[in-house]
């Protein structure tokens, strides 16, 4: 049951096998197997401290991996010879606390990676930034400072920023948890549009309704293992594991 197989939507974009991660003597991930197909949207749910963020951060090696293999977009992340910066350009990441660069304007936040990594000229990068901002409905904020934006606007800019390198995979770590309730919707809307466009995504979320709506598959994690996974209708409608049932009874 910890073996999560792709649902046939396409070739695997992410393959995780026997992933282990320890912080000191604390083994936070105790052998995770997971596969995400191209264009698939996977939502990861589970109690706090179960290792959801850690799993996500292992996918682009923001955390050093203790054991197992992680293959992302064809790159073996655990291979020490792999250029991790190259891998990360294929994987966009959105953080709970946005992490916008406060000393840059909104457009500069988005232009940073394409310009620094010599993918686009400054002018091209600006055009691209405006396109992305338009997509998240914030074109008029291009020259504003992040500090002047609301939480929802910040997170939409952060999404636009992570799209700047045209990644094939997007990772969201509780992208709406730090937002006031009235702003959650605007961010979920942007994520949903991405899903509809066929972006491969892994979302850690506490928005059960959203997960049910947008996910192709839901993964329930507990204590560093994948406890149960399946299509949202099954997992939410007919959970098999007592831990899943217990968790869902508390959050639904």
């Amino acid at each position, binding site marked *: 049951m910890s073996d999560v197989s792709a649902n046939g939507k396409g070739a695997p974009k992410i393959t995780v096998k026997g992933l282990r991660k320890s912080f000191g003597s604390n083994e936070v991930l105790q052998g995770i197997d997971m596969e995400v197909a191209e264009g698939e949207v996977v939502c990861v749910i589970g109690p706090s401290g179960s290792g959801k963020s850690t799993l996500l951060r292992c996918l*682009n090696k*923001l955390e050093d991996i203790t054991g197992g293999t992680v293959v992302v977009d064809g790159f073996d992340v655990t291979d020490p010879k792999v250029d991790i910066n190259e*891998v990360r350009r294929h994987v966009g*990441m959105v953080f709970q606390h946005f992490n916008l*660069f406060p*000393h840059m304007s909104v457009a500069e936040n988005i232009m*940073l990676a394409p310009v*620094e990594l010599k993918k686009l000229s400054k002018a091209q990068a600006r055009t691209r930034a405006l396109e992305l901002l338009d997509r998240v409905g914030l074109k008029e904020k291009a020259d504003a400072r992040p500090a002047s934006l609301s939480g929802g606007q910040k997170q939409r800019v952060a999404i636009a920023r*992570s799209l*700047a390198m045209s990644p094939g995979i997007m990772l969201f770590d509780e992208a709406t948890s730090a937002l006031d309730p009235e702003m959650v919707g605007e961010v979920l809307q942007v994520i949903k549009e991405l899903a509809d466009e066929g972006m491969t995504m892994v979302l850690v979320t506490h928005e059960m309704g959203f997960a049910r709506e947008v996910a192709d598959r839901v993964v329930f994690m507990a204590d560093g293992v994948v406890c149960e996974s399946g299509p949202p209708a099954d997992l939410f409608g007919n959970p098999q594991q007592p831990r899943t049932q217990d968790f869902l009874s508390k959050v639904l």
Partner: protein
Amino acid sequence: MKNSYSSLRPTRWSRWIATAVLAMMAMVVGIPGAVAQPSDDSVEGKTFVIGTDTTFAPFEFRQGGELVGIDMDLLRAIADKQGFNVEIRSLGFNAALQALSSNQVDGVIAGMSITDERKEVYDFSEPYFESGVQMAIDRNNDDIQGYEDLEGKTVVAKTGSEGESYAKSIADEYGFRVTSLDQSATMYESVKAGTAVAVVDDYPVLAYGIAQGNGLKTVTEKVPGGSYGFAVNKGQNTALLAAFNDGLAELQASGEYQQIVDEYLADPTEAAPSTFWDLLTQSLPALMKGLSNTLIVTGVSFAVAMILGLAFGFLKISNNIVLRGVATSFINLFRGTPILVWAFFFYFGLAQLIGQTVNIWVAGVLTLSLNGAAYIAEIVRGGIQSVDPGQLEASRSLGLGYGRSMQKVVIPQAFKIMTPSLINQLIIMLKDSSLLLAIGFAELLYQGQQIYAANFRVTETLLIVGIIYFVAIMALTKLANFADRRFNK
């Protein structure tokens, strides 16, 4: 009276240091132009290079940037009368004698007593000044008429001087105590402040101080001491020596000699007392030069300290335990030791270690910048660590490398946090640069000391120096804050 160690320097050790410094500089740069002249022909139209001390008022000292004093005026008047030219090199007492011995200068005039030992190496002119020691008291003190009124009182004298030995030799007889200080200027201040009732000092120095209006008066006769002479190398420059003697005799006969001496030593009742404004205008050129040196040494040191501080700050947060250890050792070493120790080390110790003189600017910049770098490294570490780690993660997750992420994302934010501490460090460094006076670096406070060593107006001079520091630091703070607002929006 000056043998080798009784000039008017701030302190005896700093005088020694300054002399050593100048000697080293003289050795490094060489003293060009001076070749021992053949001793036969006349001096007419020739140019002689003459070495002298740096500051030994009233014989040689700087006033408004120019070398003046009894020695200087006499020498120039004699050269004038005898039709030769002089090029004066202000080297310091010992350095001047060394330069003479190595034929780098043709003669030395430096308030030098004619002694038997010196006569073995040099030929002296006729004595041009009769020195001695004398006692002075506060101008308003009418109780002390002579040594017999000193019973139970305290008398101050200069450490290691003839005045001190004389005072001690009669202390028991008259029942007074002798305390010793390092500088003439501070001795006079202590008499005026009442901590000592009288001072025993070199007669010309004392007379000059009184002429400068230091608020003292003499009550006893001068006790005769050494005679000062002009020196050339033994058997060389006989024409120059003869011309000096002829010229001196001429000046003495015409009364010009007395005029020159009186100009420096006459009682102030004849001379109009100079005002604070006079002091200011006279001392300002030298003080501005000092301020300029202070600003330059501080600016250069701060730039070097920034580079080193950034480097060590980064090492301090590195994951490598060895690099971290290196940074920690550096920081602890320079934070845990006084700046003065390093100033002496880089100027004197290092020179001995490498067997080569160290330029005083190099020593000064090393001292200030390494000390500053230790503090800046800690500021850098703190600044970087106070940037939210999420910033680095966000940048790295975009595919930017560590270095690029630091450069574009973390450091700009860290700098904003660090700026007030860095401005603070810059100001501390500016104030610390005054410690370099100990190795004879001609910064602002050093120039102030040179000035009051010559005019004895300690309080007013220090007041001016203090105001200049204050204004400079206020201006610097304003400038730094402006730059901060401008670049760290």
